[in-house]
C-alpha cells in the first residue's frame, strides 16, 4: 500500500522531476548558496521513490511501518525538501526559507526541525550505517518496511562507508536499498582526479552486496531496479546509478562550479527558461 499515490505513470514522474528541478534552482537562488549540482543529479531517484515506490504517509510522518529514506549526501537537501513539500509533508511556502535563520529547512537536513526527515546528515559517509540500524530494527520487530539510503561517489572515499558495507553484508541485512548517485564529481574536481574509486561496481560486489548498475536519469530503470532490490533476501542491495551532475540545466551539466555555488541572476533566469 502506498499511501501517497497508488499508481503514477512515468510521464507524470517526468513532470514532477521538472518541478523539483525548478524548486532546486529557486531555493538555491533565493538562498544565494547551496548545492544545485548534486541535487539535480539525484532528482529522478528521489522523486521516483517518494512519488511512486515508497510506502509512506505524509500526514503521519512517524508511522512505524513507513519506508524510510536517509539522504546520506545531505548537501542535496534542496532536492529532498522539494520532494517532501510536493508529497505533502509541509507547505511549499516554506521552500523559499531554505537556509534562512529560523527556517526548518536547514542547509543540511536536521531531523528535529522538519517532518519527513529520517536522519540528520551533512557529515559524509554516515547514512549507510544509520540505514543498517533501521533495517536491523525492522528485522527484530518482524516488520516489512524498507530503508533507502541515497549515497554518493564522493562518500565512497570515506572509511565509514566501507565499514558499513562489510558489516551489512556479514549480518545479511536485507530490506536495505542504497542508491549511489554516481555523478563522477566531488567538490574539488572529478572523482577521477581526486580519488578514483573505480571499479566502483566491483567493489560493492566484492563486499557482498547485491549490485545493479543503471542510468539514474531513466525512470523506468530506477523503478525496475528498486522492485528487483526489494526482492533481495539476506543481502543488502546497492543500485549504482550513473548520473550527470547538474542534470537538466545545460550549463550546469558536468560543470563542477555548481557543486556548491548558487546561480547568479542571469544564470537563474536562463535555468528557469530551460526548465519551463
Amino acid at each position: 500500500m502506498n499511501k501517497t499515490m497508488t499508481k503514477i505513470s512515468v510521464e507524470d514522474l517526468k513532470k514532477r522531476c521538472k518541478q523539483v528541478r525548478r524548486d532546486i534552482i529557486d531555493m538555491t537562488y533565493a538562498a544565494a548558496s547551496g548545492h544545485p549540482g548534486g541535487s539535480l543529479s539525484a532528482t529522478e531517484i528521489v522523486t521516483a521513490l517518494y512519488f511512486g515506490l515508497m510506502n509512506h504517509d505524509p500526514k503521519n510522518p512517524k508511522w512505524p511501518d513507513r519506508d524510510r529514506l536517509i539522504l546520506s549526501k545531505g548537501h542535496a537537501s534542496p532536492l529532498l525538501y522539494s520532494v517532501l513539500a510536493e508529497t505533502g509533508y509541509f507547505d511549499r511556502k516554506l521552500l523559499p526559507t531554505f537556509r534562512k535563520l529560523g527556517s526548518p529547512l536547514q542547509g543540511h537536513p536536521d531531523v528535529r526541525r522538519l517532518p519527513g526527515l529520517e536522519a540528520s546528515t551533512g557529515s559524509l559517509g554516515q547514512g549507510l550505517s544509520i540505514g543498517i540500524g533501521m533495517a536491523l530494527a525492522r528485522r527484530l520487530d518482524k516488520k516489512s518496511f524498507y530503508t533507502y539510503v541515497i549515497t554518493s561517489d564522493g562518500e565512497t572515499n570515506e572509511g565509514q562507508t566501507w565499514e558499513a558495507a562489510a558489516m551489512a553484508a556479514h549480518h545479511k541485512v536485507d530490506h536495505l536499498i542504497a542508491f549511489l548517485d554516481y555523478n563522477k564529481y566531488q567538490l574539488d574536481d572529478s572523482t577521477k582526479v581526486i580519488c578514483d574509486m573505480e571499479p566502483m561496481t566491483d567493489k560493492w560486489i566484492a563486499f557482498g552486496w547485491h549490485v545493479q548498475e543503471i542510468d539514474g536519469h531513466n525512470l523506468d530503470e530506477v523503478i525496475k531496479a528498486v522492485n528487483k532490490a526489494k526482492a533481495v533476501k539476506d543481502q543488502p542491495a546497492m543500485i549504482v546509478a550513473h548520473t550527470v551532475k547538474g542534470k537538466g540545466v545545460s550549463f550546469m551539466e558536468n560543470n563542477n562550479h555548481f557543486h556548491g555555488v548558487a546561480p547568479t541572476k542571469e544564470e537563474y533566469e536562463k535555468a528557469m527558461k530551460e526548465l519551463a
Partner: protein
Amino acid sequence: MEKKLGKATRDAYGLAIVEIGRKNPDVVVLDADLSKSTKSAGFQAAFPDRFFNVGIQEANMVGVASGLAAAGKIPFISSFATFLISKGYDQLRMAVAFPELNVKVVGSHGGISVGEDGASQMSIEDLALTTSLPNFVVMVPCDEFSTRALVMQAAEHKGPVFIRTCRPKAPIVHNEKSDFKIGKGVLLREGKDVTIVAAGLLVFEALQAAENLSKQGIQAGVIDMHTIKPLDRELLVREAKKTGHLVVAEEHQIWGGLGSAVATAVSQEAPCRMEFVAIQDTFAESGLPDELLVKYGLTAPNVEAAAKRVLQAPANAE
C-alpha cells in the same frame, strides 16, 4: 577506611545490561570485537538475537546504533572508551547528540589503570570529548553498586548517555542501599575546611585522603560526582560556600574533565581556591595499574597533598 575490592565497573556493567535486557525487549547491545573485555559478552550469551558484533569498526557501530534508536530500540554500545569515543566522535556528534537519540555509549578501560597495555589503550580524553556534546549525559561510576544503579537509570533516561567503566577491580565505596540519581552527586563525608570532588577510581582515594587529613585536624568533605554532565551545581555551590576550598580528583587529562566542569560551575556562583589532581597534559605508559597511579600522581597521598596546598594558598585579593 578499609580497602575492599569489589567487581570491576566493567563487570558490573555486563551484569546490569543482562538484567535490563530481561526487563526490556527493546534493549539491544552492540560491540566492536571487544565484548570479552567490555563485558557485553554476557548479554550475547543471554540474548543472542539482540546482540550485534559489528567487528572492529567503531564509527559504523555508532551509526548503526543511531538507526536502531531512531527505529525505537535502546542500543547499548561498547568498546574501549578511547576507541569508541575518538574513532566514533563525528558519528556521536552527528548521529547521536545532534538528533538527540536514545543511544547508551559505554566505554570500558577508562583512565590509566588499564595498566600493562599502555598509552594507546588508555582513555584519558573521553570526558572532555563527550561533555562537549550537547544533549549527552556523562557519567563515571566508582564501584559496582553505583555502576549497576547508573546503568539501570541510563536505560530509563531518554537521550544519549556516555558511561565510562574501568578495567581493574574497584574498591567498594557504596552499598546496595546507596541512593543514586543521574546528575546528583553523593556527599560521602561532611567537611568543614575543604571539599574533595572526585569521580571513578579517585573517589576511594579521596576518602582515604580525607581520613588521613582528619587525623591532622583538617575536616575534608568528599563528593562522589559520578555525573560530570549535567553537573550537580547545587551541591557544588553549597559545599564551595561552606568550605571555601575545593580539590577535584579524576583519572583524566587536566583539561576538559571533571576539574574543568567544576571550575566553570563554581567560578560563577561561589568562586574559591581550587586544586586539581589529574593527568598533567601527558600520555601514560605500560606498568602495573598501582605503579601507574603512583607515577602519575593519582593516589590518596596526592589528594591529601592537594588539599593541604589549597588550604595554604593565600586567599584571593578581594
